[in-house]
């Protein structure tokens, strides 16, 4: 197991761990006004308290859960849709596939974030749940996954074993499962990772602007409150740095994981000295 894979996996899994076991790790409930406000980190409050009187460490840990949940939901949705559409777009001919290709092209050019903002901005705040948020992120996120899968299938399609399979009269679904899929699994995994990461970035951005679920608690919403209370200008680093750093660590870990998996699953010629 190479270094990148190990470190990446470690980073990602520790954050996921925090998220999954949040209810047990968080020391305090996250209701408002329970504690004295704006407290710096201390022994009783590991990360201090915020301007609404909540323990930041508990907020953070629950925030991780929420953000991860939205990311995972959106990521799975967009990957699933992306795999199917990407395959159709790459493999089939005909009007539907052509339209799909055009659609993917269009979505990849348009600035999606403003569109998302408009969409969630017009939704009444009360209607936005974690799932709704994940859904709309996925609606605009699947073209990214589709494009990945599309280029992969295109390159696989050109390779000889597919022609051989066609010659031996395999039908399309057979070809899909027996010949192409096994080569794709690692890429689908990588795409999923990327989609989850991208979904988390988008969710945090939307929540930062105040478009997240109203009584929810993602890391993005934590950052939203820091802005509402001008935490940065007041130097309350213990409030805004933890969520920011957790996100950074997670994304870097994801990147390392991807790179490590790539090295493991795609055997290339061993590195020659001097490159």
């Amino acid at each position: 197991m190479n270094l990148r894979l190990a470190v990446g996996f470690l980073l990602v899994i520790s954050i996921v761990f925090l998220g999954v076991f949040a209810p047990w790790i968080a020391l305090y409930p996250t209701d408002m006004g329970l504690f004295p406000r704006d407290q710096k980190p201390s022994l009783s409050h590991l990360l201090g308290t915020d301007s609404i009187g909540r323990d930041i460490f508990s907020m953070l840990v629950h925030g991780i859960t929420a953000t991860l949940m939205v990311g995972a939901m959106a990521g799975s949705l967009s990957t699933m849709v992306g795999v199917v559409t990407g395959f159709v777009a790459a493999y089939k001919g005909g009007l539907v596939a052509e339209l799909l290709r055009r659609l993917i092209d269009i979505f990849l050019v348009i600035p999606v974030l403003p569109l998302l903002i408009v969409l969630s901005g017009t939704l009444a705040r009360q209607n936005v749940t974690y799932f709704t948020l994940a859904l709309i992120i996925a609606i605009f996120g699947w073209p990214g996954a589709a494009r990945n899968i599309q280029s992969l299938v295109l390159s696989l399609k050109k390779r000889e074993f597919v022609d051989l399979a066609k010659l031996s009269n395999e039908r399309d679904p057979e070809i899909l499962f027996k010949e192409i899929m096994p080569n794709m699994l690692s890429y689908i995994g990588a795409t999923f990772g990327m989609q989850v990461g991208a979904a988390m970035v988008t969710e945090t951005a939307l929540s930062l602007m105040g478009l997240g679920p109203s009584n929810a608690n993602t890391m993005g919403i934590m950052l939203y409150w820091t802005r509402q209370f001008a935490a940065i200008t007041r130097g309350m680093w213990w409030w805004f740095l933890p969520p920011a750093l957790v996100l950074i660590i997670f994304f870097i870990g994801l990147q390392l994981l991807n790179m490590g998996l790539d090295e493991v699953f795609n055997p290339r010629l061993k590195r020659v000295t001097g490159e």
Partner: protein
Amino acid sequence: MLFLIRKKIDVNISPICQYLVKKLVVFCVTLWFAVTINFVIPRLYRVNPIEQQLRALEMTYGYQAIEGIDIKKVVAETRARLGLDQDMFTQYVSYLIQMFKFDFGISYGAFPTPVVELISYYLPYSLGLLFTTLIISWSLGVLLGVFIAFKRGSKIDSTLTSAMLFLNRIPFYILALILIYLLGYVFSIFPMSGTYGYHVVPGFNLTFISSLIYHSTLPALSILLVSLGGWMIMMRSTVVNILEEDYLTMAKAKGLRKTTIIKRYIFRNALLPQVTGLAMSLGHILGGSLIVETVFAYRGLGTLLAWAVGSGDTFVMQATFFMSTFAVLTANLIVDLTYALIDPRIRG
């Protein structure tokens, strides 16, 4: 649809014309698609948010006159203009025509200012920030990429490349928060928000421009430091691939000077995918820059959008989306045209 149009054009026109026309068609179709989404979204709800706004307007101001403007008349006109009481198709057509004329209606949150006015107040700063940062980031990335490609395998290469790879993963706005804290609060080098000084008046004078640059540095840095890595790594891998190419061996065999080889053989070939990469990432970078603007309360479309969301101003929201898309698509078109100039293979 699209390929039918393409087929008709294939006859007897030079390849570069074909290329340009194709790109123009893509531009129009994509813009049309964005506009259509803009049209559809408010109408998906049971009660059209625009209709809601208009009713709210009537309720709030209906029995007074603001600066001599008859609210009921304006609302009725807007209703008529949007054709909210007509069928979908007529609405759609008139909507398309309005978009074509850049007629976005009246702002609800800043009534009775026309939306176009708001947009033109905020747009220049967004464009200025975005494109300046983009040009600097892209150029620097390209130059660094070439430099680091020649040093591949060395310590500098691995450290710099890893650093850039990680920086690239940080969302713009997170870096913005950190920069505000470090450089604004802790070290107080740069202002933590705003577009120009409090008492500075916009104009073509030195005070304004220097104040603008001073306030724009942190927002620009947030975007620059993140996107720089992407360009650098892409250029590096392109150059590394080119160094393996046969025509590079030929250039060396010909005994050309190193600068000549770098300029004419490496650079000119490596730029092509870089330009394409620039076009592809414009949408994403613009989106990110909008969020950065809200973090800095920078006078740009991002702040306008955030305000519009806060006050539920659908017209402004839609107009902002439209203008962002329009800007990105136009920039894409320009990049495509540039590509046609530098790649002789496109010319046929």
